[in-house]
């Protein structure tokens, strides 16, 4: 029942957007905003430029809405666009030092206080610095699976890859990160506590 409800909801919502209903466009944005934001954040590790990225995603969504054929769910279709936007953003950011990217990130500090916050923040910073050394495809696959918590099949769907290729990318990313963590006690400790995320 859940699938069929989501299916007809998507069709009707898209039709109303295509009819030019502003309320429908707003509804679409509100339904998918949090998920897209979370995915972008977990791929990129920062809210820097997030407004522009979210706007880029949704403008592309509306510009391409006529091509949605209801073969994938609207959420999956939008996530594919978000992943492409993230992927391009990674390419633009590669020249920047990772410290600069995470300098304004207070996410961890807001969770816990004092030395623990600083330690956790440093762990996140090093994780994303390590992720920045990976290929964008490996980084995106790893972030969506290990950090964003998506099943492998869903990662494969939104990246347009086969399941096996996705597993390989995540495995390679994991191996590369473990290799980096071997020489970095802070990253090693940060990742060792997070082993429960491996699926």
């Amino acid at each position, binding site marked *: 029942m859940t699938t069929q409800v989501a299916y007809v909801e998507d069709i009707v919502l898209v039709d109303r957007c295509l009819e030019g209903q502003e309320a429908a466009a707003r509804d679409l944005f509100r339904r998918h905003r949090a998920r897209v*934001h979370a995915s972008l954040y977990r791929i990129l590790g920062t*809210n820097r430029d997030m407004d522009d990225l*979210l706007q880029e995603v949704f403008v592309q969504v509306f510009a391409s809405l006529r091509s949605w054929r209801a073969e994938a769910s609207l959420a999956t279709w939008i996530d594919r666009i978000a992943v492409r936007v993230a992927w391009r953003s990674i390419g633009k950011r590669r020249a920047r030092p990772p410290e600069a990217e995470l300098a304004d990130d207070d996410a961890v500090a807001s969770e816990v206080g004092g030395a623990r916050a600083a330690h956790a923040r440093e762990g996140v910073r090093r994780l994303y610095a390590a992720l920045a050394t990976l290929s964008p495809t490996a980084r995106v696959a790893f972030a969506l699976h290990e950090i964003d918590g998506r099943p492998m099949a869903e990662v494969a769907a939104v990246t347009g890859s086969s399941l096996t290729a996705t597993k390989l990318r995540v495995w390679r990313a994991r191996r590369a990160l473990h290799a980096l963590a071997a020489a970095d006690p802070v990253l090693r400790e940060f990742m060792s506590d997070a082993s429960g*995320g491996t699926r």
Partner: protein
Amino acid sequence: MTLADKVPVESLAPERLERLERRVVAAAGPALARPQRPTLWPWGLALAGAAAGAIAMYAMRPAPPSPAAPPLAVATDARGATLTLGDATILAAPDTAYDVVRADGGVDVRLARGAVHLDVAPRAGRPPLWVHAGDVGVRVVGTAFTVTRAPDDGLVSVEVAHGVVEVHRAGAVSPVTAGQRWSSHDGTVVAVAPSSDAPPPPDPAASSGGRIGDTSTRTGDLATGPAIDVAVLADRDRPTVTPGAGAGTTARATPRNGARPTTGGATAKPDVVPAETPGDLLSEIRREPLPAGTSVATGTAAERVSTLRARLANSVRDEAAAALYTLARLQFVELGKQDEALQSLDLYATRFPTGAERDDAMWLRVRILCGRSFTHKCRAAAHSYVKAFGQDLDLDLLAERAPPRVRLANRVTRQP
């Protein structure tokens, strides 16, 4: 604790979100607007005609040969190997030899001996991926399957794990679907039971630091050896790079023209822009069982159709409604007669607008029409469904302005 727990998403300030929403909604109108047709002046028409002629002349010239990447030869020893070609993965059994040729944008895997298992993402408009074994060709659109070529008599078999492939041989084309096997012995397609010997894809996620394909070792079959990655091909079908192919391997991936293979993670440049590939929502919907309807005595489908028609003609309201829905379901599911099923559903909507199976009947209509193609009929059926059951199903689409709501599909996103 997972990484997701340790990397909480920093939420955006409400005013930032409101500003963003205004920008997005304002941009939605122009983005959704259809492009305006330009006015064609007479001189414009003449110019267009001349340009069309020139283009036609240009298009009819002999096409230059498209540059083809050098072939890639793979030969495995007793350990097998895994090769990643963009979003396709090839697992080779021990003592297998094949070439990978890329021409005209497609990929051709030429199996000389042994067995390969392929897991291929939907090609999504790209040229197809082919596997050739002798005079047998297998056309792949997006699936997972195994091709085996016997070393002694050259017999070729194709076994499909999921999806569908086309087997081409001597001008004949045989579609082979999931759970079926085709053999060059007699050219027939037979169903195969799931076998414990079936080559599972490698599950690197299940191993930590192990060799790719270690999870396949229990079968002693495919891809128990190292991963091979050679940056020879280009674009989306280019092999990716695996650092450290494992000691002791003798699996080889050699460009036929002698180009040096790239190893050790040297090609950090991204190889794939995520593609627009069909999702599996329709497949998921097709897998969902339809409500059964009323019970019918066993017999052939034709006998049950007769029974249901008789019940429809001779029964009172509720029983007749159940018989009609069951008839539509039988026509669609068992007989594959979609038009007849739709006629039965139309009749149901007319005769039993408040029948007990009304929601099931309307959903069946959506499923049939949208399963065919995404047409206005499909959309109209979806609109009717929402109009009929929107309140029951907690759909807020009928509201003039939907309240703020975020639906997270299949998972929970933690927000700080």
